């Protein structure tokens, strides 16, 4: 009786293997979660040092407009006002999204509602290629094409928020388009059939039925595009002029959070105030990316309920 009992109660080789496999797969998950947690922890603790170690007032940091962490202001406090960069980041992001949305909507609608198979076959790779072009290449083209054109038509040096907007527009266009195509595809076919059967033209069907029923998908796509624009570093840095001043119109050199970070981190010493202030900018970036994430989640849930 004993050997049989033992065989029945002991785990088989296959069961052990299965457990080991599940363990390996689970460990990978744990590793990814650890990475994310440590990113959040390390950037946060570094970013807060400006306020905890150097005792900069939080309100001053977000409202003062002079960014020169190396020197002291009249009141003896270091000049760390991050408002110019925050405004710069938001301006390029919002403007790029505003510019890109009509094009993205048209392209997505064209691909999913109007084009035949051949049109789609041409456009699909176009979108994928636009996604695939590296951001430094966009930056380089911005530098040698967009900046001179802006200078020619609008005056100024050409470096500034407007050039940054144009570069970001091309970068986020494919992001918004491909995401919106997915949500257009999710609109049930009978919506279209019902509308057309009522005698509506294609345009009426489009804007009264299809776009309206996929509006939450469109919003999510736009927010995703904005998140990408907000976090984009090198392409913007190459064309925006990198002057941490309050943006005075769209044509003067400005700065974004990412551009100050990429140019500054290498030139400051770890642990000093100028360095800590930069990490605070990184923390703002991190925070905004989490915020964008939260909004898309919220919109997604709202869209589901309907």
């Amino acid at each position, binding site marked *: 009786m004993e050997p049989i009992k033992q065989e029945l109660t002991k785990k088989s080789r*296959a069961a052990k*293997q299965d457990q080991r*496999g*599940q363990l*390996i*797969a689970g460990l*990978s*998950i744990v*590793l*990814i*979660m650890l*990475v*994310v947690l*440590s*990113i959040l922890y*390390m*950037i946060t603790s570094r970013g807060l040092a400006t306020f905890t170690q150097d005792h900069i007032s939080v309100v001053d940091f977000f409202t003062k407009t002079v960014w020169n962490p190396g020197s002291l202001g009249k009141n003896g406090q270091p000049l760390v006002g991050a408002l110019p960069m925050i405004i710069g980041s938001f301006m390029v992001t919002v403007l790029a999204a505003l510019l890109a949305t009509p*094009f993205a909507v*048209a*392209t997505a*609608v*064209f691909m999913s509602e*109007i084009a035949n198979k051949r049109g789609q076959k041409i*456009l699909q*790779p*176009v979108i994928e*290629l636009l996604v*695939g*072009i*590296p*951001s*430094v*290449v966009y*930056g*380089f*083209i911005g530098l*040698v*094409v967009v900046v001179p054109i802006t200078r020619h038509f609008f005056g100024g040096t050409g470096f500034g928020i407007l050039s940054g907007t144009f570069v970001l527009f091309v970068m986020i266009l494919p992001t918004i388009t491909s995401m919106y195509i997915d949500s257009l595809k999710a609109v049930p076919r009978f919506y279209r059939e019902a509308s057309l059967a009522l005698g*509506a*033209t*294609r*345009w009426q069907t*489009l*804007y009264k039925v299809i776009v309206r029923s996929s509006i939450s998908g469109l919003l999510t796509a736009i927010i995703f595009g904005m*998140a990408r624009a907000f*976090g*984009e*570093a*090198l392409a913007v840095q*190459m064309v925006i002029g990198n002057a941490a001043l309050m943006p005075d119109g769209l044509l003067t050199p400005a700065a974004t959070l*990412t551009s100050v*970070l*990429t140019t500054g*981190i*290498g030139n400051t010493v*770890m642990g000093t105030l100028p360095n800590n202030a930069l990490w605070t900018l*990184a923390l703002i*970036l991190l925070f905004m*990316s989490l915020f964008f994430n939260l909004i898309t*989640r919220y919109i997604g849930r709202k869209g589901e309920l309907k």
Partner: protein
Amino acid sequence: MNAKTADKIATGVIYCLVGIVVLILVFLIGFILWTGLPYVSWDFLTGSANAMGGSGGIGDQLFNSFYLLLLTLLISFPIALGAAIYLSEYAKQNWFTDLIRITIEVLSSLPSVVVGLFGFLLFVIQFKLGFSIISGAIALTFFNLPILTRNIENSLQDVPNLQREAGMSLGLSKWRTVIKVVLPVALPGILTGIILSAGRVFGEAAALIYTAGQSSPSINYGDWNPLNPTSPLNIFRPAETLAVHIWKINSEGVMPNANQISAGTSAVLIIAILLFNFLARWLGGRLYRRITASK
């Protein structure tokens, strides 16, 4: 306005906007190839960069880019595969799985510059690895993991449940079913995913400027011992990639012919990424036909 006219106008506007988008791409690709290709020569592709002397090749950067890509894929593929298998085959529908998915989404939405700065903080400074290939490869791994995990998970999900049931009914354990039945069927999709993510890794620069560094010390291509400091295989040497090279020569601007070098480098980068894209398409289609035995 009558509805028919409105329809015609709207259609016209949509065609125009789409036309502009296509023109932008044609211009972008055309411009890069037109200005860059005349500068691409064998000397350019193999020569080493010489910041002060006028001429500059990109041999070292080209090698560094591929080497970093290879290392990144070597590190990130097993982790992504494990995570994807867990999510697709083992994860139950509960709050913990939701948390995992949110975490992965957060990682994928982090700006690459933040990922790069984290790599700088942890590997370059804390672990004292300095600007090195290994720091760069790990930073790129963080950047690559969420995309790769999602791609692999999608390919696994696309495998019909019938296959899993067949495996189970033959008495295989779940793990063996996954490894021996599901994974081979999902392989074409997984490969396509890897190649596409490779394209993104190849062009990434923001995560690298503070991890793999912005300099390329001289490399001796005759020395293949990974422990020697001048060996191309040494993972502790700083390494500038093609994308970082473009950024650096444009933002420092000490080279007299920075524009030509950037144009040439951009052309090489774009061609590499086009090749990645075509390869992914071609290989995906071919493997799919092979495995499903369809024409």
